[in-house]
């Protein structure tokens, strides 16, 4: 079995030190022009008491080629989409077009200061306005703010919009009795954290054995009269479309609450169905998921908040509007929740997302969704004989399996994930959603072809076989990466969160 695998071979750059350990006194990697004004003694410009007196000791001193080699070597230790399938469920790791990168680097955008007077930034504002229009059409929700910097930020914005809307609708006193946010047990952790930031307390809704929101439980919780809203991911984090979504919205609306949809899984819906048509009041999108802006090892993102006409007055300011062919900033929204970020948000991500939408076209967007769902369905079909699939409904763009069969041999989800690395794949999302024991959430996206899907299925089936025949091989994986499994417990007990010079480290 092992001999069939194309494994990672011993690494060509195993020992790149920290830059601080490479530093050599006096080395430089830059040159500035000579100072072209008469130099004054610095203490006559800034009083001595405000001047740095540590001479920046500890900052690295390296040459340009040192820096290049340092980062190029380190980069080879990363797995990335460009190398292959990156099936992290719920993260939508799709191809990042280089064309979008080029657009974001056009000097007219890249060199534009955010406080430029609007007359001298019309092109930049036009991009914001156009993207707002496109996202309104895609979601079926007309009010759009592009200010939030990431999904969780968009969630916070959306939930605050709900809070301010209810405050205005019911008055402060009545609104104070409506402080419960309902969140399914399968939700992303950001949902309860965002609800908390907006002053809500969280009640958890159970999922049914089918993996859908439990309507009876929802009705029961709504009967209390204290419900401000529901935060629902759709398709949910089990990859299943909440087919009762209209009824769900109705129940919440009848109870005086609003429905927030976590749009993390919009990659299953673009061009096929629109949250606005389902009765949803407000959602956030993740431009770095659905609209292909790069994840960059953890960010940046961009988390537009999209809402109904009714909620629009509560969106963050400023809003970008078009008046007589001119784009303007409108601050005149007295009911707005306020500003959630300086300037306009992660503008560079907006350029990339608009370029993605325009290069795909309406038909391309729909086809991408179809391919994403087809690929997930294909994987579901290919793995069902070897892994436990806890829910029967056909999955949308991602599918959840568990380690139930393998764990009988002592092989768990973590081990399967680590073994997948040996087969040249990035592992799937593991142990999420929390309600599924030993969850493996697989999202192939539309950016893989059938050949790669077959390779992935084959790798997973081979691991299932290994778990029976040679569990130790799986338990000790990965085998030939630059480092093995790290002792995370020791790291958390005595955290070392920064480099320190040797002498200082022993002294303290």
């Amino acid at each position, binding site marked *: 079995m092992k001999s069939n695998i194309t494994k990672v071979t011993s690494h060509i750059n195993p020992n790149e030190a920290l830059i601080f350990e490479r530093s050599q006194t006096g080395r430089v990697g830059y040159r500035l022009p000579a100072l072209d004004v008469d130099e004054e003694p610095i203490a006559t410009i800034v009083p001595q008491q405000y001047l740095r007196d540590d001479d920046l000791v500890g900052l690295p001193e390296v040459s340009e080629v040192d820096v290049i080699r340092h980062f190029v070597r380190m980069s080879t230790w990363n797995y990335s989409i460009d190398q292959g399938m990156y099936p992290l469920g719920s993260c939508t790791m799709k191809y990042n077009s280089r064309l979008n990168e080029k657009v974001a680097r056009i000097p007219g955008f890249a060199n534009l200061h955010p406080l430029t007077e609007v007359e001298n930034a019309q092109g930049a504002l036009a991009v914001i306005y156009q993207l707002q229009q496109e996202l309104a059409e895609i979601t079926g929700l007309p009010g759009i703010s592009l200010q939030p910097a990431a999904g969780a930020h968009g969630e916070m914005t959306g939930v605050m919009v709900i809070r301010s809307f209810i405050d205005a609708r019911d008055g402060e006193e009545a609104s104070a009795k409506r402080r419960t946010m309902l969140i399914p047990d399968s939700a992303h952790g950001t949902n309860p954290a965002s609800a908390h930031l907006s002053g809500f307390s969280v009640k958890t809704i159970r999922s049914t054995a089918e993996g859908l929101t439990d309507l009876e439980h929802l009705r029961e919780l709504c009967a209390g009269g204290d419900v401000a809203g529901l935060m629902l991911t759709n398709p949910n984090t089990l990859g299943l479309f909440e087919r009762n979504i209209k009824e769900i919205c109705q129940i919440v609306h009848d109870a005086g609450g609003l429905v927030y949809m976590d749009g993390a899984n919009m990659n299953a819906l673009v061009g096929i169905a629109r949250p606005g048509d389902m009765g949803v009041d407000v959602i956030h999108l993740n431009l770095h998921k659905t609209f292909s802006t790069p994840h960059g090892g953890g960010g940046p993102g961009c988390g537009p908040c999209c809402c109904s006409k009714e909620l629009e007055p509560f969106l963050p300011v400023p809003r970008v509007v078009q008046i007589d062919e001119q784009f303007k900033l409108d601050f005149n929204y007295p009911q707005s929740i306020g500003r959630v970020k300086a300037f306009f948000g992660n503008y560079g991500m907006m350029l990339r997302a608009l370029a993605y939408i325009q290069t795909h076209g309406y038909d391309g967007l729909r086809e991408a969704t179809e391919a994403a769902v087809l690929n997930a369905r294909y994987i579901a079909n290919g793995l069902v004989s070897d892994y436990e699939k806890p829910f029967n409904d056909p999955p949308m763009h991602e599918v959840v399996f568990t380690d139930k069969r393998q764990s009988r041999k002592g092989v768990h989800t973590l081990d399967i994930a680590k073994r997948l690395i040996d087969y040249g794949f990035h592992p799937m999302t593991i*142990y999420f959603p929390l309600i599924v024991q030993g969850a493996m959430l697989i999202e192939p996206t539309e950016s893989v072809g059938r050949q790669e899907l077959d390779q992935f299925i084959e790798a997973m089936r081979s691991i299932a076989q290994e778990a029976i025949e040679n569990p130790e091989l799986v338990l000790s994986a990965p085998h030939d990466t630059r480092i093995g499994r790290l002792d*995370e*417990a020791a790291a*958390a*007990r005595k955290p070392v969160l920064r480099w320190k010079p040797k002498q200082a480290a022993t002294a303290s």
Partner: protein
Amino acid sequence: MANIPDDLHYSKDHEWVRADGGVATVGITDHAQNQLGDVVYVELPKVGDEFGANEPFGSVESVKAVSEVFSPVSGEIVEINGSLTDSPEKVNTDPYGDGWMIRVKMSNAGEVDSMLSAAEYEDFTKAETE
């Protein structure tokens, strides 16, 4: 099988109590530490803090989970196991000994009588894992 000493009292939240005169020593069970995995951090109250029965007095963290710990008895904290700050792993290696967490001057010594015995706790954990 988890170690469940006969001479202790147990709660359904997986704490144990050793009553000695009016003072109760509290920790988490072997079963609990097993479920939690490698303990990396223990958050404890201050001496002098007072808690009601079954109120949370602190938390235990593993790498990827955090659980509140409840005091099965009410009373005032008279001592905490400060050595857990530097060596939280004692909760894993010696849950009933060096891994103890707090000592409580009980305001109602009768509370321990309503706790589970070792045999009852064993049945309880079995039922829970099934």
